[in-house]
């Protein structure tokens, strides 16, 4: 018999679920003890957490902050916590944390790297957080010239004349394009600044400097060390690798066979070898490849190699962004009469880069972590510096405190950045495009 017609006369109210379906007990049961297997896992995890804390906490807490050498540390700890207690000797961090952070940078000039770092953050802010006013982008475009000047010091006119190169490139683009077409324009825009930087910038700086001396103390890059070195290498490499990476990605996407082959070859080569071999190239071979007699500073050489390294990875990230753009965007741009470079600049790149930001941030984290490798070629990054500190008679034999401090600093940086990139990924995923 099929069911009878039925009409509900009154609507039922919503009722609370039965007791087994809510409350903290339910939470415990569902999240920690939902089955015997889960219960075992929970107990094991609790045991593990307890084990780790029981060993690490006393060591961290029963420590010495004031000693001047490892021996003194041991005495102090034995005195205050009883003999045989093992405790951390944080005194080494107290004495050396400035060195671990700034290396040999002159202490009266510490404000410069701090200011530079702050400026970098400020410049990144409008790029990273689209909600901020667009006018801040002007700051972003001056910072790449300002920050190196703050770090290395010297004449103010040097960054000015280097920035002038960028201006000249833009001018060349605007001048040449109407006369000789956009391809010639782009070539001119690439060539003019390079020529200027190679031949014009030096004399111009000299001239300006003699006309109006404006300079701050210059600091050799040998004085760079500790975290400042890591951050400098990381930021400079990422900033410089971005344009190279864009060009490589465009090259790899293009249908010009030779261009494509060259780009693919470069990218795959760099990605195929470990960074440490590239650092060997920087420290051992780069001088062979340059004209006899040229020799420049190891940190610059390292930055060059790390930049190339980052550029290859960046190219792949940006290629992913380009691939994610629908073909219609290219076609619509073409149908409006935009040529290749204009379409790239106005339509494609702004979108592709935005999609790629999480990938770029991840690349940056990777490069930043990899800067520790420079300790292997003798640069005094935090890890390298920890060795130097351990070579001091007073601190010979100290291990965990230094490693712990360095690890904690790296963790704070990288964790913050990875959170940011996750936030971006979520935002991009939900954003209407």
């Amino acid at each position, binding site marked *: 018999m099929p069911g009878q017609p039925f009409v509900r006369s009154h609507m039922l109210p919503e009722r609370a679920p039965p007791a087994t379906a809510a409350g903290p007990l339910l939470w415990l049961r569902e999240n920690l003890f939902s089955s015997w297997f889960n219960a075992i896992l929970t107990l094991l995890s609790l045991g593990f957490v307890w084990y780790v804390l029981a060993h690490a906490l006393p060591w961290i807490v029963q420590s010495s902050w004031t000693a001047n050498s490892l021996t003194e540390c041991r005495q102090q700890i034995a005195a205050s916590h009883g003999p045989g207690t093992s405790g951390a000797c944080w005194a080494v961090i107290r004495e050396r944390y400035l060195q671990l952070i700034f290396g040999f940078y002159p202490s009266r000039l510490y404000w410069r790297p701090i200011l530079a770092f702050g400026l970098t953050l400020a410049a990144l802010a409008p790029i990273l957080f689209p909600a901020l006013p667009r006018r801040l982008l002007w700051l972003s475009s001056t910072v790449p010239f300002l920050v190196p000047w703050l770090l290395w010091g010297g004449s103010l006119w040097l960054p000015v004349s280097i920035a002038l190169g960028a201006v000249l490139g833009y001018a060349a683009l605007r001048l040449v394009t109407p006369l000789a077409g956009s391809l010639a324009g782009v070539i001119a825009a690439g060539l003019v600044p390079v020529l200027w930087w190679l031949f014009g910038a030096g004399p111009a700086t000299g001239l300006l400097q003699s006309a109006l001396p404006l300079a701050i103390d210059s600091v050799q890059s040998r004085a760079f060390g500790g975290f400042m070195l890591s951050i400098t290498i990381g930021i400079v490499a990422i900033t410089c690798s971005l344009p190279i990476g864009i060009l490589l990605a465009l090259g790899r996407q293009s249908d010009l066979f030779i261009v494509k082959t060259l780009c693919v070859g470069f990218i795959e080569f760099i990605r195929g070898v470990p960074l440490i071999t590239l650092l060997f190239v920087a420290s051992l071979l780069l*001088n062979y490849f340059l004209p006899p007699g040229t020799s420049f500073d*190891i940190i610059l050489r390292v930055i060059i190699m790390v930049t190339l390294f980052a550029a290859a990875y960046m190219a792949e990230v940006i290629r992913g962004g380009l691939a994610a753009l629908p073909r219609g965007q290219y076609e619509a741009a073409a149908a409006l009469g935009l040529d290749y470079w204009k379409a790239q600049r106005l339509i494609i790149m702004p979108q592709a880069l935005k999609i790629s930001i999480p990938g770029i941030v991840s690349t940056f984290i990777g490069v930043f972590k990899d800067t520790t490798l420079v300790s292997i070629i003798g640069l005094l990054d935090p890890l390298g510096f920890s060795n*130097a500190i*351990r*070579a001091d008679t007073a601190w*010979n034999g100290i291990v965990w405190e230094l490693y712990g401090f360095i690890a904690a600093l790296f963790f704070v940086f990288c964790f913050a950045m990875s959170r940011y990139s996750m936030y971006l990924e979520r935002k991009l995923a939900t954003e209407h495009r």
Partner: protein
Amino acid sequence: AGTLDDVKARGKVNCGTNTGLVGFAAPDANGEWQGFDVALCRAVAAAVLGDHSAVEFVSTTGRTRFTALASGEIDLLVRNTTWTFTRDVDLKFTFVGVNYYDGQGFMVPKSLGVTSAKELDGATICIQTGTTTELNLADFFRTNNISYEPVPIETNAEGQQQYLAGACDAYTTDISGLAATRATFEDPTAHVILPEIVSKEPLGPLVRHGDDEWADVVRWTLFALIAAEEYGVTSANIDELVANPASNPEISRLLGTEGDLGPMLGLSVDWAVKAIKAGGNYGELFEKFIGQNTPIGLPRGLNAQWTDGGLLYAPPFR
């Protein structure tokens, strides 16, 4: 242009050092490099530029040190580097002298009960790589027909850590390094340095091949420090000796109060005075950084003046 002109034009000496070796080179809490090797760099800077702080220290590893020198990144390398035939001839460097006569030895815990390196059959031995040490070690064990387990390590700090923790039975490196390391132990007396010295390790500063003017400057700066000790010239009495030239003409020539040795080198007349005043004569430097009164506590041994039965022998200043 020659390196000397470059250095003068630059106003700084670029000096390659170790990334950190107790007593020989390490940055102190103020970020100043200190140590026996470092002091030689400072003396050269003082001699050439008149300012013992006009030095840029470039920390180098075993792998990068020769490239740094060959490429001109550094002007001289003072990094406990052993003078060997191939380095001098094949790698094309010029060793200008010896600032420390060393030899490779072994350190073992007393409790091991070993009294000779020949008893180390089957032992685990920590060696610092990138030096001649591993070659000497291989040779020693091969000639004595005994086996060993090498544990290669990158830095002295790690070697010490492994040795102390018992991860190796013996630690081998230059005797100076062993002594320096032992000195920092909680209980130095619990460790012995075995009598065998398995190699000759003349450690000295080196410069590039083919720049004899610069090699001379470094060479004679080193000799000036050595000679100063021989003649009793110290940083304490040097001012007085310059003011009242002594009867010893050798001292006068060294200090520039007589003759013009300095200008012959392309330096000022009082170059040696500045070099000695930078940190003291050889003996003073030795005592200050690695000698008996330092935690490192090295005896002079081979590094005593020839007059005391050592090997230090500065050619005449004339």
